[in-house]
């Protein structure tokens, strides 16, 4: 018997959606037959605004591309600009950048813990992990001066050096988080119900994953070990010792496992950075920002964020102090539209938000 398909609007005002977007679902009973992602609720025209602002002013917009994890965008932009200009970055700045990126990754994963668990109705994990994320944000506050909008990694290096006693604070926080992660595991990953809900749901085709533009934990969840940190090592990742974990089945469970291990690797990287960081300059000063022009050309730099490859394309006309074009490649850009639409077909309504969170969709990044 074929039921009549009803249309279900998933968002924009919906507690189960990540951020402010909409998925229009055609459902038969509890099963989805067609999903259409509709975005644009957060379109602020960043890239147009960057053309109206000079190279440094543009930098302040970057952290707003994807608010849960702003630093990879800053990093990509900074490196694209450095590539275009040929500006060297001091060694210490590279280490600091790596640390900031990894702290951001930890923050993003803690956020993901909360979101993924809450999408399944287990609010306790979210209450813990998002609460504990505050300790990471405290680190950011001490280092950069802001909780969310760090505006810290900029072309030429980083904005400020470590404040006094920062290393100890980082180590203390990492110790605490490592202890707490076990609590999350007991509650989330050991839970029989979570396993039932996560295994075999939202499977990404392993053969097609790369062609579909899947990146980050969803790709590694398929068992494909690709990570820009090892594929195209930037900053000092080639000097650090860490493992890129992979999953097996490409389902929500595998992606969750990848993230579960990756957060521990990030903690390991942060510890190594604290050990290895050299003394010295942290910033190779740019010229007066009002008159700073870049040579003609374009550059694209990519960074591995918690949600996948985040890239930034900049083009300069060589004369103006403003970018001719600035364009972000968000991991979520692919995940949240074509991939999500594909994965949702045949899924249960109950799994929609679970799948979305497992892909790390980030609507502000899609829409910019």
């Amino acid at each position: 018997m074929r039921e009549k398909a009803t249309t279900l609007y998933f968002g924009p005002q919906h507690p189960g959606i990540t951020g402010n977007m909409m998925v229009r679902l055609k459902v038969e009973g509890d099963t989805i037959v067609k999903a259409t992602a509709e975005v644009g609720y957060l379109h602020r025209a960043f890239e147009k605004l960057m053309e109206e602002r000079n190279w440094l002013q543009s930098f302040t917009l970057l952290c707003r591309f994807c608010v849960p994890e702003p630093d990879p965008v800053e990093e990509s932009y900074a490196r694209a600009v450095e590539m275009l200009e040929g500006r060297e970055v001091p060694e210490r700045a590279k280490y600091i950048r790596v640390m900031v990126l990894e702290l951001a990754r930890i923050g993003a994963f803690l956020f993901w813990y909360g979101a993924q668990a809450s999408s399944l109705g287990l609010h306790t994990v979210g209450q813990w992990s998002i609460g504990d994320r505050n300790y990471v944000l405290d680190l950011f506050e001490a280092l950069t001066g802001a909780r969310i909008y760090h505006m810290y990694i900029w072309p030429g290096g980083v904005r400020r050096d470590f404040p006094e006693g920062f290393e100890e604070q980082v180590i203390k926080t990492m110790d605490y988080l490592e202890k707490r992660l076990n609590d999350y595991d007991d509650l989330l990953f050991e839970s029989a119900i979570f396993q039932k809900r996560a295994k075999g749901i939202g499977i990404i085709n392993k053969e097609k994953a790369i062609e579909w533009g899947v990146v980050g934990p969803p790709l590694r969840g398929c068992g494909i070990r690709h990570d820009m940190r090892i594929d195209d090592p930037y900053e000092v990742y080639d000097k650090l010792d860490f493992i890129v974990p992979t999953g097996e089945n490409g389902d929500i469970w595998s992606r969750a496992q990848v993230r579960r291990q990756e957060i521990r690797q990030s903690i390991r990287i942060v510890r190594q950075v604290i050990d290895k960081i050299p003394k010295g300059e942290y910033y190779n000063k740019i010229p007066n920002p009002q008159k700073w022009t870049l040579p003609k050309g374009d550059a694209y730099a990519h960074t591995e964020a918690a949600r996948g490859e985040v890239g930034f394309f900049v083009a300069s006309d060589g004369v103006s102090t403003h970018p001719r074009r600035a364009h972000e490649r968000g991991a979520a850009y692919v995940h949240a539209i074509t991939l999500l639409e594909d994965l949702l077909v045949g899924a249960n309504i109950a799994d929609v938000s679970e799948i979305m969170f497992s892909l790390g969709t980030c609507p502000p990044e899609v829409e910019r």
Partner: protein
Amino acid sequence: MSFFDLKGTLKPLTALKQFGRKPHTLKDVPYVTREAADRYRGFHYNDLEQCIGCGNCATICQNQAIDMVPVEGIEGKKGDSGLRPRVDNGRCCWCGLCVDVCPTGSLSLTKDYLYVSEDPNSFLWMPGVDNPQGKERISFFSTEETSLNDFARIPMPELEGMERVKSFAEVVLGYNEEQARAEASRCISCGLCTEACPEHMHIPEYINAIARANDADAVRIIYDNNPLPEMCGKVCTRRCEDVCAIAHRGEPIAIRWLKRYATETVDNADLIKEIVNPEIKEPNGFKVGIVGAGPSGLTVAYYLALRGFDCTIYEAHAKAGGMTMYGIPKYRFPEESLDKQIEYIEKVGVKINFNTKVGKDISFREIYDTHDAVFVGVGFPKPWTLGVEGENLKGSIQAVNFLYEINNGKRVDLGDKVIVIGGGNVAIDAARVSRRLGADVTILYRRRVQDMPADWEEIEGAEEEGVHIVPQAIPVKFHGDEKGHVISVEYVMAEMVPDERGGRPKPVPIEGSNKTIEATAVLGAIGQQGDYSFLEEEFAEKIKIERGRFVVNEIQQTSDPKIFAGGDAANRTADAISAIADGYRAVKGIEAMLVKKDEGNVD
């Protein structure tokens, strides 16, 4: 998965142990404001005393959140626009770029972050005025290290100290294009410098033009109100750099060198005319006579010529330029560049009668009668005498005269031990020229080195070239040999006594500290004065002269409405750019007087 997952059911229950733990919640929030991190980017604070109102914060703000507004109790002055930033918290994103670009470091962010209101119009915020207590709460500030301003000047390529003394070749080599662009891009274009410049040149605009690689436009902008920019680019006293916003924490923008760079890109008078492409008005029939082809006279002549006046300059010497020609040594200001500029000025229709000394070759009366207006820019040709014993000995020369001779291409024999007395630019010039003639040079100066009125670059340059400076030394007597030639200078050391009235400290001779120094020549350079003997009696009576200077009003008009005066003879600052400024004012005055009178007659 097994049929019944006991572990998976029970393991999560361990979470319940958290029940007895202490909650992580911060109980006091929101009733007690929680302290932010030490580097938190909260509300702005502005140190109103330190702030110079340059508006760089307003420019960098991508949100246009910062307005520059006048504040009660703060008056604008040179180097301070009198405006202060006001932040619209309905725009601000607390990125702190404004802090990082603040040249003085007065703007900072504080730890305060809490403001809640039902009135959307209450989010305008005057940092420093609205939160005077913010000073103790500063958290995010810029140091010289973190500031985005470029505090280090691009070093000017120069000849090596010992290399220079071998010839009269120009010491300063000038920026090349890359250096000039880099230096120009340090400028934050606030324009505070224009107020300090007596001539109010359009400094930020031409620097911007250089930074944007448009040198021709820079030249046009420069020629808009300065007909002798190359001279200024080389020897200007650059008051502009003293008030440069960047100078508060770093080295000022090399405004002078940038002007020099721009003008040097144009290497002949025809090209200047082509680039500047001035609009020369139809002759209006008025005739203006100008006494003296110094900077002020040339300025008057150039701009009046552009405005359609018939200008004639009467110059006593064989070349135009006045002190810039005869007073400034050629290693600072080569003759060719001056010639180029004079040639250009002549090209726009200025007539210069050389070797025509007013009062001798032509009477002032005649000029006065045959012209609709007269501009007097005669400068200070007569040096002050020291007034010490033995001053009239042979070998005791006035530095001005010495420089005149040298610049005129004559050779002056000074011997190998030259003493220069004075601390001004003329003294340093004389000393350095003497070095180039092969002498050992010692400068005696009454006060300390830091009190010297000469440019610090000149003093440094002199020291690099091996000039000895003896500060706090007051010459008391010149000793001469039997032939009446000076052989030594006796001087007394002085100590600096603070002035009770708050002026600069005075040198007071120390009894019995007399010293004698050997000399083959002594160059006195303690200043010049005017020589108004060319004026006929009736004019001398009519024109008011005080302390050796013409008394002029704001349009450089003397007490005879037809006579205008400018340059050293009419201002107290006695430098080229002030002379140009006087000239430019006189141009407007003369134009206003004549053209307005003319129009008045028509009506």
